């Protein structure tokens, strides 16, 4: 793992010591090279994990998320180049340093063996994200957004710290690999149920669970493009990853403790999908669609069947790429019209046809069109939820229909129809934007051909 962490840390001196004309070129190049050298981690040749050292390991669950994190840094750097044009070089370098430090924390989080280290880095990822949102966000609402984001996550995760320290005391070790074998079954006493809640709430807030999701629309909307991308693509998945890891230690009371959260998620995904149909703000629509997709992941993780775990992992990766791409597309609109109102710039298909192609593909993957990995994830989750309880198929079916509705609504509203008269002078799509979309879409399509690497530990 050091061959990935040390080069990522060294990206910071690279940023600060580059000539002003070479900042973006150097960081883009080197972050892409780092992505390439981390690909061998995908060589999961046995059904156990790759135990790289006493501090870091990577198995079939953490490796796809790690790959997504590494792939996203160059994409964030490419996406941020326009809105930072007027900033001073020092500010640009500071912004890139924030992105790189976030990357370092995320890489270490996904590969941490020890749960306390995972926790510390989980919290540490909040700091660069908060700085990105509150310093480089666009509107005054960004301060409120940062506050919601920080305190929702902190309040959720402080009980997790106490729970982890208690587990360390009782079990003797918080090594994730050992804890699977050493953990004792939890009883149905008050203390063990509160322990279950303490462990899970941090990740529920992060996912986010439907009742605790208020931070997400604010944070996603107010963040600059790189902030939105990393929030939607990776930080939400930290919650899913944490839940998948910690549920191995929380059996067997999960079977009844999970019911309130299952109900909240099953209902919440329909609610948030429906809210998407009434959104005027484009980024807010994509943010609520993230909540809806993550609710599916929560349901999958809580019912704990092999197929649902496979579906959860696939859905996390698929949603990461799709959501990030949608935010980039919304940003390309924002950079031209300086407004996030969806109906403001309509009929873009005639003006920017290639961008319309990207919009179409992003919307199609968002509504889980076969044979994309979005469909594989959703299908596995729907099937395993149906086997858990037959009546949930109604809710899942309604959610799939409404997801299709709002994805097509977003597509038709921005791309089709007659253009609004004031957007006649929009600049055409830049190579940078097309590169960004291609680099989002090609991994998504290539994974449809070879999905076994993202199907997680139970494949």
């Amino acid at each position, binding site marked *: 793992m050091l061959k990935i962490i040390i080069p990522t840390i060294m990206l910071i001196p690279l940023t600060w010591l580059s000539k002003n004309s070479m900042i973006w070129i150097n960081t883009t190049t080197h972050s*892409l*090279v780092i992505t*390439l050298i981390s690909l*061998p981690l*995908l060589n999961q040749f*046995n059904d156990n994990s790759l135990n790289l050292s006493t501090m870091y390991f990577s198995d079939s669950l953490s490796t796809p998320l790690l790959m997504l994190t590494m792939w996203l840094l160059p994409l964030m750097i490419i996406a941020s180049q326009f809105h930072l044009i007027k900033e001073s070089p020092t500010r640009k370098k500071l912004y890139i340093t924030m992105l790189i430090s976030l990357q370092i924390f995320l890489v270490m989080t996904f590969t941490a063996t020890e749960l306390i280290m995972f926790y510390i880095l989980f919290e540490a990822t909040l700091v660069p994200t908060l700085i990105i949102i509150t310093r480089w966000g*666009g509107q005054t609402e960004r301060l409120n957004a940062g506050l919601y984001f920080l305190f929702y996550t902190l309040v959720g995760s402080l009980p997790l710290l106490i729970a982890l320290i208690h587990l360390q005391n009782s079990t003797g070790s918080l090594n994730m690999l050992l804890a699977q074998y050493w953990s004792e079954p939890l009883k149905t006493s008050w203390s063990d149920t509160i322990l279950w809640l303490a462990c899970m709430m941090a990740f529920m807030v992060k996912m986010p669970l439907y009742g605790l999701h208020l931070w997400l629309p604010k944070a996603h909307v107010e963040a600059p493009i790189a902030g939105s991308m990393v929030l939607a693509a990776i930080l939400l998945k930290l919650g899913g990853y944490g839940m998948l890891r910690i549920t191995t230690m929380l059996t067997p009371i999960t079977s009844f403790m999970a019911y309130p959260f299952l109900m909240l998620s099953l209902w919440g995904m329909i609610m948030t999908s429906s809210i998407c149909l009434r959104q005027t703000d484009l980024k807010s629509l994509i943010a609520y669609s993230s909540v809806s997709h993550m609710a599916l992941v929560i349901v999958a993780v809580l019912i704990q069947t092999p197929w649902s775990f496979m579906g959860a992992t696939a859905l996390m990766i698929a949603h990461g790429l799709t959501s990030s791409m949608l935010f980039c597309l919304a940003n390309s609109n924002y950079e031209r019209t300086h*407004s996030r109102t969806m109906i403001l710039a309509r009929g873009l298909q005639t003006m920017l046809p290639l961008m319309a192609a990207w919009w179409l593909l992003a919307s199609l993957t968002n509504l889980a069109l076969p044979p994309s990995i979005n469909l594989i994830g959703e299908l596995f989750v729907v099937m395993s939820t149906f086997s858990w309880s037959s009546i949930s198929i109604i809710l899942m079916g309604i959610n799939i229909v409404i997801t299709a509705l709002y994805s097509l609504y977003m597509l038709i509203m921005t791309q089709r129809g007659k253009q609004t008269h004031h957007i006649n002078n929009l600049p055409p799509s830049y*190579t940078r934007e097309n590169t960004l979309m291609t680099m989002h879409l090609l991994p998504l399509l290539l994974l449809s051909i070879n999905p076994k690497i993202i199907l997680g530990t139970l494949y």
Partner: protein
Amino acid sequence: MLTRVSRFGSALPRLLSSQPARFVSQSKPTSSTGSTAVTELHPAAEQSGHGEVSPYVKNPDYHGFSSDPVEDEWNMRVGFFFGISVALVIGGTFLHYLPDHGMRQWARREAERLVVQREKEGLPLIEENYYDVNKIVLPAAEKE
């Protein structure tokens, strides 16, 4: 939303208006700052005088990365080469030729081999008991 328009003072032309009261920072707002209000379609970049000029006028081969043509061209090349040619193509080929992921194909071959062997020996394909019955130690039956 409409009340914000009156805050900017309708008497002053927009180009000469002072800092809008709702911005938190005291520094000049960046060009990409805006809001969802329909009334604020014209960004602050107009104040610097070249807001609506297309970048393609100065550089017909503008790729969107930088206003300096050389830097722009290099950034585009670097992005495409390392992003697509190296990372996606070489990386994708590497991933395609990875060996048996998670030992699934090995497991299939092993299962077929064991089935053939067990059928030849006449043993059942799989034993009924998961654990060795002799090793299970049951507590003595208690008298109620």
